[in-house]
């Protein structure tokens, strides 16, 4: 693997291989000494054009535990905010000898532009681009689901037959897109639930069912309910009337949570709006995987960096 730009192009075997390496990385995290020498001498740049402390520190922890040198390049307050182009930034990183670039960008496709432009030789990891993809988030979600379902016997397995309901702002969510591609590639059945205004106008080609009724979806006793963050600015653009109506209709409140089977996992990519898309009780219950997702994020990102940067990098 040369770059990790999205999950749409990821094959099943490749995805399972990455999740299995993440299992190895997770095992290392349980040791007293959590650090591996694998990427010693390699330089990983966290190139963040959007603020995201959580994702950045997760990648930073992952790279450091593989003994890579980490440079954090935040575009805010730097020359980038003064009009420096992505090309010039990339060429600067190239001159500094970056081996891997982890990029978070507000524009969909920016990681692909970086990877295919010829401006830089480094392996590129997409840490979230616009409303396009966030592949490591989907991988850590898949990893979390697989571990909860199969525990120590997770290795080598997909998510065949697992029923996942993803709820919320599908239109603007890179997490939803990456999960739709990856979870279905792994064999899961994915159902999307959202207000009609927050679904892309044409999802006919997506390998997922789309519905507007959360109660009907939950009545199907899904294995996983994944709640997405609702951003306040959506309310001002007439996507829905107000937060109360949203919470009533599409929020995982206590009543809905109580009706779920005890085996249903509740997931959230964070950060959560408690009381809006998810109730505090649902978020803090043992069925919630929110904290596991954070811990697993480091393992999955270690696996991704390992596949991209250790040894010979393949062609694709």
């Amino acid at each position: 693997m040369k770059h990790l730009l999205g999950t749409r192009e990821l094959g099943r075997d490749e995805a399972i291989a990455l999740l299995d390496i993440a299992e190895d990385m997770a095992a290392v995290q349980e040791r007293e000494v959590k650090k591996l020498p694998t990427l010693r001498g390699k330089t990983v740049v966290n190139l963040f054009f959007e603020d995201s402390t959580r994702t950045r520190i997760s990648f930073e922890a992952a790279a450091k535990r593989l003994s890579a040198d980490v440079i954090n390049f935040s575009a805010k307050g730097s020359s980038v905010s003064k009009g420096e182009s992505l090309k010039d930034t990339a060429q600067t990183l190239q001159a500094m000898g970056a081996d891997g670039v982890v990029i978070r960008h507000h524009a969909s496709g920016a990681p692909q532009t970086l990877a295919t432009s010829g401006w830089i030789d480094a392996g590129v990891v997409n840490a979230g681009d616009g409303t396009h993809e966030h592949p490591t988030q989907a991988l850590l979600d898949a990893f979390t689901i697989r571990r909860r379902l199969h525990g120590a016997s997770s290795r080598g397995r997909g998510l065949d037959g697992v029923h996942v309901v993803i709820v919320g702002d599908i239109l603007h969510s890179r997490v939803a897109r990456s999960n739709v591609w990856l979870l279905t590639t792994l064999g899961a059945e994915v159902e999307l639930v959202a207000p009609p205004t927050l679904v892309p106008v044409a999802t006919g080609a997506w390998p997922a069912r789309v519905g507007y009724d959360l109660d009907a979806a939950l009545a199907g006793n899904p294995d996983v309910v994944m709640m997405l963050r609702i951003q306040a600015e959506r309310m001002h653009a007439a996507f829905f009337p107000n937060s109360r109506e949203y919470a009533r209709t599409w929020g995982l409140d206590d009543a809905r949570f109580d009706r779920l089977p005890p085996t249903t996992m509740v997931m959230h990519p964070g950060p959560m709006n408690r009381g809006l898309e998810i109730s505090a009780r649902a978020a803090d219950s043992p069925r919630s995987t929110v904290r596991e997702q954070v811990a697993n994020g480091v393992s999955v990102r270690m696996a991704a960096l390992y596949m991209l940067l250790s040894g010979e990098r393949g062609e694709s």
Partner: protein
Amino acid sequence: MSMRHLIIGATLPSGERADILIDGGIIAEVGSISAPAGATVHDADGLIALPGLVDLHTHLREPGYEQSETVLTGTQAAAAGGFTAVFAMANTFPVADTAGVVEQEASLGRSAGYATVQPIGAVTVGLKGAELAELGAMARSRANVRVFSDDGFCVSDPLLMRRALEYVKAFDGVIAQHAQEPRLTEGAQMNEGVLSGELGLVGWPAVAEESIIARDVLLAEHVGSRLHVCHVSTAGSVEVIRWAKARGIDVTAEVTPHHLLLTEDLIRGYDPRFKVNPPLRRAEDTLALRAALADGTIDIVATDHAPHPVEAKESEWDAAANGMVGLESALSVVHAAVVENGLLDWSDVARVLSETPARIGRLRGQGEAIAAGAAPELTLYDPSASSVFDLDRLAGRSTNSPYLGRTLPGRVVATFHAGYATVIDGRVRPSEETAELAAAANGGIHG
């Protein structure tokens, strides 16, 4: 430098073979001609002779954006593509919203000598969509403006659009509308549909174009005015225009070469060369546009030649500029999209790329059928040549062509403007020579 040219054995748009003599600032004779003294003879065996092409939609960028294009380089690109006249859009800096600016542009075109530059005037002051520009002053100026457009922006205020349509009737003008409902396209990056949802790019829905066209044809009907629709891009727009024409509304429409040939699938790699406004649409739309051009629902092809410097396209998709250069490739693209498959023949090409655009723009001395007494505006095209479109084919200042690396049929071999050759053997004539020829021709014609 002879002004007497004998073209031997060209194929006319009708399919007939003929010799063509250009002499004394007109097409002197068409038929079987023996070479008169002092004539430069051109062998046109296998070449199609078209009336000089006329582009109703060109961005020349001067004044204000000379790093992208100038009147000189833009008309060199035009000549390379077989064009002898271009209508220059008003979104320059300063905006072409006064008589002074349009007169300056026309005069720069005359001294460069590659093509007639017919300025388009802005509809509203500064393209701001708030108050009418001095349409009458531009119409009565030496630039003789008849086409008015805020292209780049839609005249979205319905009352202002109504007034503009009504006002230009006083001097037989036409409003050329960039049909784009602004609220429905805030932040829009590509056609809205399956692919935009997948790529996570903000959608530019077809309805944002179709709803404005529907409104405008009804306004044009109500006030009895002439409307021209720029760069029609969707199958739904075609249906609206077809309905309007059947109803007798005085509307004309254009399609760009790129909307005839290219589809949104090219955007999958986020290559900003394919970013344009209106955006590339679905394959179904290109088919509807081709059929509409063939049945006359769409009247003309216009390039929307939109040069941009390299840095405006070397970026992430969202930050890249909209637009493609199109003058040099237009005839080959039309050939590939609608001639090779038999939808249009060469007389149709002469109609949609020369005769009708000149008529819509009320431009005299252009778009005349090749016959004795016609204006000496002519293009020789080799339809048999097929080649990879490369940088060598571009003659303007900018290189943002979506066709680089693509195999296209045909090639412009020669262009004659005002009785002299601006392109010969596929090469654009040097600017000093062309300027001298232009000065001589202007002197000759105007005394």
